[in-house]
């Protein structure tokens, strides 16, 4: 018997890996008490899209705006010093969060897309050892988010280089059988997602990075889905660039992170030109600031950085290993529940092993938009569509899917609500 929503806590105590005191964690997120239309409590299963924000993040941002607001690095007054210190402290927190060897290697961007575009663009402009030309190859995978496909298409088109990609196996993993044919002496860049936003697959990043480094390629990792739900260690993974976004790690929108290996960042030309990224400017030419400021033209997202710092403190206090265990437990429970629904097919790995919390699925005879509409009428928020991963959908012969994605605040009772909601959806559309 599945527990009813009221008994989620009881079930939770029985389940291995769930965060202890889950109700205390949930109380940190004010939005989780929202009542939606017709009195349904919010069941938020769209965290791969954006996570909800704990009170400490909201408070840190409000406090900064109320008490410390000033521009950074340029204002010489007391508030300027406070604001600069808060901004740079966030950089320290990010560096520690991903085990970056140096805080200077942490660059704040607008989001993960901008971080990936920064790498692809500056590589397109690079001269010397990093220069990419005709005959060179960039390798990505078929499970990338569009933001880790399009920048590389643009780069290879502009440089006359060739874009290649890893295919996917039927069970939603990277097909590594032809890795030695794909990653060759011609390969200049290998860019891949750590965790798929659609299939949930956790990719063997360190293994692929090892092979890429053997041929001298640069390894770029999209950690947008990894950073929220598992420990990320750029040294252990031995990658060269890593991107993620604040709003998926309980932080605010408007700020992303690019980490890059110092020697590579120093070799790359600037991205955007403007204030803060210069050493000196003459009318004829300019010289540039050192990293990270070389890549941070203009007033940065200051209060957003403060929010990101608070988010990282929050996650670190819980412990990313514990968040990971929680995600695995909830994902396993969800996969088990979904498998009981006739006509439902999960796209991607069928077990929680090496799998993130995003679960995309389809139901015979009901379009994903209609599934999400009916779920929404019961307060259950999921995403429907191609999730910015059209090629991966095409690979599995589907146009779109419904995606439920959990996070550290998700309870087994909410998964029960999803399963019940899906059974209701089938009844509504009279599908057996």
């Amino acid at each position, binding site marked *: 018997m599945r527990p009813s929503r009221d008994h989620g806590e009881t079930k939770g105590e029985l389940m291995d890996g769930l965060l202890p005191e889950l109700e205390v964690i949930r109380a940190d997120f004010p939005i989780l008490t929202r009542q939606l239309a017709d009195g349904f409590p919010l069941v938020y299963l769209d965290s791969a899209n954006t996570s909800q924000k704990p009170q400490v993040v909201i408070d840190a941002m409000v406090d900064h705006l109320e008490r410390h607001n000033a521009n950074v690095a340029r204002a010489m007054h007391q508030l300027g010093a406070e604001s600069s210190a808060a901004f740079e402290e966030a950089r320290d927190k990010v560096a520690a969060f991903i085990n970056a060897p140096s805080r200077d290697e942490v660059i704040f961007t607008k989001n993960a897309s901008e971080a990936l575009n920064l790498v692809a663009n500056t590589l397109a402009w690079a001269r010397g050892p990093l220069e990419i030309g005709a005959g060179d190859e960039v390798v990505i995978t078929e499970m990338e988010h569009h933001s880790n496909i399009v920048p590389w298409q643009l780069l290879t088109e502009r440089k006359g280089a060739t874009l290649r990609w890893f295919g996917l196996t039927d069970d939603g993993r990277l097909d590594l059988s032809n890795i030695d044919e794909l990653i060759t002496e011609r390969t200049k860049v290998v860019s891949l997602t750590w965790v798929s936003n659609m299939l949930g697959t956790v990719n063997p990043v360190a293994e692929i990075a090892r092979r890429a480094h053997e041929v001298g390629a640069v390894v770029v990792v999209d950690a947008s889905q990894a950073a929220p739900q598992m420990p990320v260690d750029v040294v252990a993974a031995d990658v060269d660039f890593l991107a993620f976004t604040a709003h998926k790690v309980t932080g605010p929108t408007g700020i992303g992170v690019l980490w890059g290996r110092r020697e590579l960042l120093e070799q790359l030309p600037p991205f955007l030109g403007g204030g803060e990224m210069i050493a000196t400017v003459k009318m004829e030419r300019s010289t540039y600031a050192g990293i990270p400021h070389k890549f941070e033209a203009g007033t940065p997202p200051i209060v957003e950085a403060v929010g990101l710092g608070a988010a990282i403190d929050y996650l670190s206090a819980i412990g990313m290993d514990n968040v990971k265990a929680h995600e695995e437990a909830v994902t396993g429970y969800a996969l088990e529940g979904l498998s009981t629904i006739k006509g439902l097919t999960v796209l991607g790995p069928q077990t929680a092993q090496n799998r993130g919390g995003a679960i995309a699925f389809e139901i015979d005879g009901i379009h994903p*938009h*209609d599934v999400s509409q*009916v779920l929404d*009428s019961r307060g259950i928020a999921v995403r429907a569509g191609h999730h910015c991963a059209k090629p991966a959908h095409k690979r599995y012969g589907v146009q779109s899917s419904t995606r439920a994605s959990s996070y550290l605040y998700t309870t087994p009772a909410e998964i029960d609500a999803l399963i019940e909601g899906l059974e209701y959806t089938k009844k*509504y559309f009279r599908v057996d």
Partner: protein
Amino acid sequence: MDLDALYQEIILDHYKNPHHKGLRDPYEAEVHHVNPTCGDEVTMRVHLSGEGDVAVVEDVSYDAEGCSISQAATSVMADLVIGKTVPEALAIHEEFLALMQGRGAVEPDEEVLEDGIAFAGVAKFPARVKCALLSWMAWKDATSQVLGARTNGVAAESKEQS
């Protein structure tokens, strides 16, 4: 949230048994429209006879993939425009557009919209309005391509497949 206002029986019927589905010859214009945010797609062919104000919509054929709202809207639209003159069909399009953009405040005219009145509830779900309009936009695009080609003196012969 009134789901039944959105998913009227008429809509579900058209979804399960779409009218005029499939791509047919002859046709003078074929268009492919997508809804980039959700991925709904429609390939639509329009076959017109005659010219100017007396041009008649002889056939609308399509291959579409998408949600119940977009599929039913395509089926209803084909029902509504086939056999009408282009000005008549455009007037129906205007009426349907006004209904969809009316945020639920527009009273639909069954004389004009027939089964299309079932979409009145969709107007209350802003995220779904674009689903209902996808095929109408495709039809309008294809129709203006045919008429444009004719006014420009380009021979708009039927593209019969061998």
